């Protein structure tokens, strides 16, 4: 059941009613859901969680909506997999992969949109909307369909056909003639102009809470404890801050003993305002124009960048800028060792993990979780040049010559 007291400004602490608003009228700070933890602690336990559904909604005591009315297509409870093969490559003996590509539309965005769409129905919106170049489009379109809402998914017209079709199959994709900035500006204006539930604008305080479920699941799947390290790919920074919040809420409520997890920022060279701010000792990331193959991390002006830098510093974490040419290598390494085909953001995470292990930031026996946020099937172009195939004639001789001959060499 929802245990929400208010929306609270993260800057000035003023409270606001639960409405589709996202910014403080007084200081323009971001609003966040404020829970009644005294009530929650009386109702939540490991057992009550385990009795819940195998989705994010098993944690609904700590979400801003009830499972009874949830727009639910099965987001969450994705596998936490022991990664011994990859660990051996990197010199890490206690490594786990949280594989969020196993969500219904193959990315962690199903978690946030499940919460946002549930609140949108609760607020009596008839239209749900987003602007996206990939994962968010599919998640919003799918949940909009499930909720029976009108759906408006805005996509730059020049996006790869596969990504457009992946969202369009659910209906209501709008292609916008223009670049990323044009789509951003249009959607910002539409957000002000139309009474729609824009998942990452006026629904943002609720939407972002869905990401906490990754922190809860990691703790539960490890046997009710927080890991020593988590590596998170950072775009807006929302996911990073909420994984941290999830782990710390569990500790605060006594679900786990403590949460002393070091939070590590992973960003690609072509869009690294948050990791760069961390490395340079700045608290506020400077906006950049994204130019990276990790499209799902291409947020040049990250709304939660400041808070992410703060958490990385506070927890003894780090910020890593991954060269663009190492992204596909990270994707390949994970695929070849663990059988998981990640999106480019996952390549950034694995390359970050590699660097942290090499530099001794993560000790060989320290429990570490690397977060894989989506599937590589949506970003095939990224690994086109990195993989090799062999072609043979349909004869055994050709097979022996080309395949076995190469194997013998």
């Amino acid at each position: 059941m929802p245990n929400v007291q208010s929306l609270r400004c993260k800057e000035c602490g003023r409270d606001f009613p639960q409405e589709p608003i996202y910014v403080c009228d007084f200081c323009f700070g971001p609003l966040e859901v404020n829970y009644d933890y005294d009530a929650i602690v009386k109702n939540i336990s490991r057992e009550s969680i385990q009795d819940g559904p195998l989705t994010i909604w098993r944690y609904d005591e700590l979400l801003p909506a009830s499972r009874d009315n949830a727009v639910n297509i099965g987001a969450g409870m994705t596998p936490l997999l022991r990664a011994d093969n990859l660990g051996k490559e990197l010199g890490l003996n206690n490594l786990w992969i949280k594989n969020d590509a196993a969500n219904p539309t193959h990315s962690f965005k199903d978690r946030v949109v499940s919460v946002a769409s549930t609140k949108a129905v609760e607020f009596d919106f008839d239209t749900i909307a987003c602007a996206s170049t990939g994962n968010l489009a599919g998640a919003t379109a799918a949940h909009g369909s499930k909720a029976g809402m009108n759906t408006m998914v805005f996509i730059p017209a020049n996006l790869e056909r596969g990504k457009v079709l992946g969202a369009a199959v659910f209906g209501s994709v709008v292609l916008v003639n223009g670049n990323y900035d044009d789509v951003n500006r249009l959607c910002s204006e539409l957000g002000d102009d139309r009474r729609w539930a824009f998942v990452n604008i006026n629904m943002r305080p609720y939407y972002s809470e869905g990401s906490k479920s990754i922190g809860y699941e990691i703790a539960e799947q490890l046997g009710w404890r927080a890991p020593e390290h988590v590596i998170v790919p950072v775009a807006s920074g929302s996911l990073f801050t909420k994984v941290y919040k999830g782990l710390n809420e569990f500790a605060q409520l006594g679900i786990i003993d403590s949460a002393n997890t070091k939070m590590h920022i992973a960003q690609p060279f072509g869009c690294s305002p948050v990791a760069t701010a961390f490395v340079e000792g700045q608290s506020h990331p400077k906006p950049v124009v994204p130019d990276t193959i990790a499209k799902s991390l291409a947020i040049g002006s990250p709304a939660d960048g400041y808070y992410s830098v703060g958490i990385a510093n506070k927890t003894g974490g780090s910020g890593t800028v991954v060269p663009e040419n190492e992204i596909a290598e990270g994707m390949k390494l994970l695929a070849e060792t663990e059988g998981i085909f990640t999106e480019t953001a996952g390549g950034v995470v694995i390359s970050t993990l590699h660097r942290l292990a090499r530099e001794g930031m993560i000790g060989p026996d320290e429990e570490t979780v690397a977060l894989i946020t989506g599937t590589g099937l949506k970003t095939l172009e990224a690994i086109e040049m990195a993989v090799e195939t062999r072609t043979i004639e349909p004869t055994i001789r050709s097979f022996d010559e080309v395949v076995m001959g190469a194997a013998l060499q």
Partner: protein
Amino acid sequence: MPFRRVKFTMNTELIQSPVIYELGHKFEIVTNIRRAEIDADSGWVILELEGALDEIERGLTWVTEQGCDVSSLEGDILAG
């Protein structure tokens, strides 16, 4: 009157210039600073701009031409 909420991020050279003052004088825009942090090297300012929408657009184009980064309060909306 329409308004927009924006964030200006300024580099070392720009923090020495009265950009916000000039924005309010060159264009028919009322500027209202709500939160800011300025240090020796750089700074950011969150402010509300009130005026006709096309005048605000012209003003923001001018600010950008001065070398100031202008972003919406919610950051980039277009997500992966």
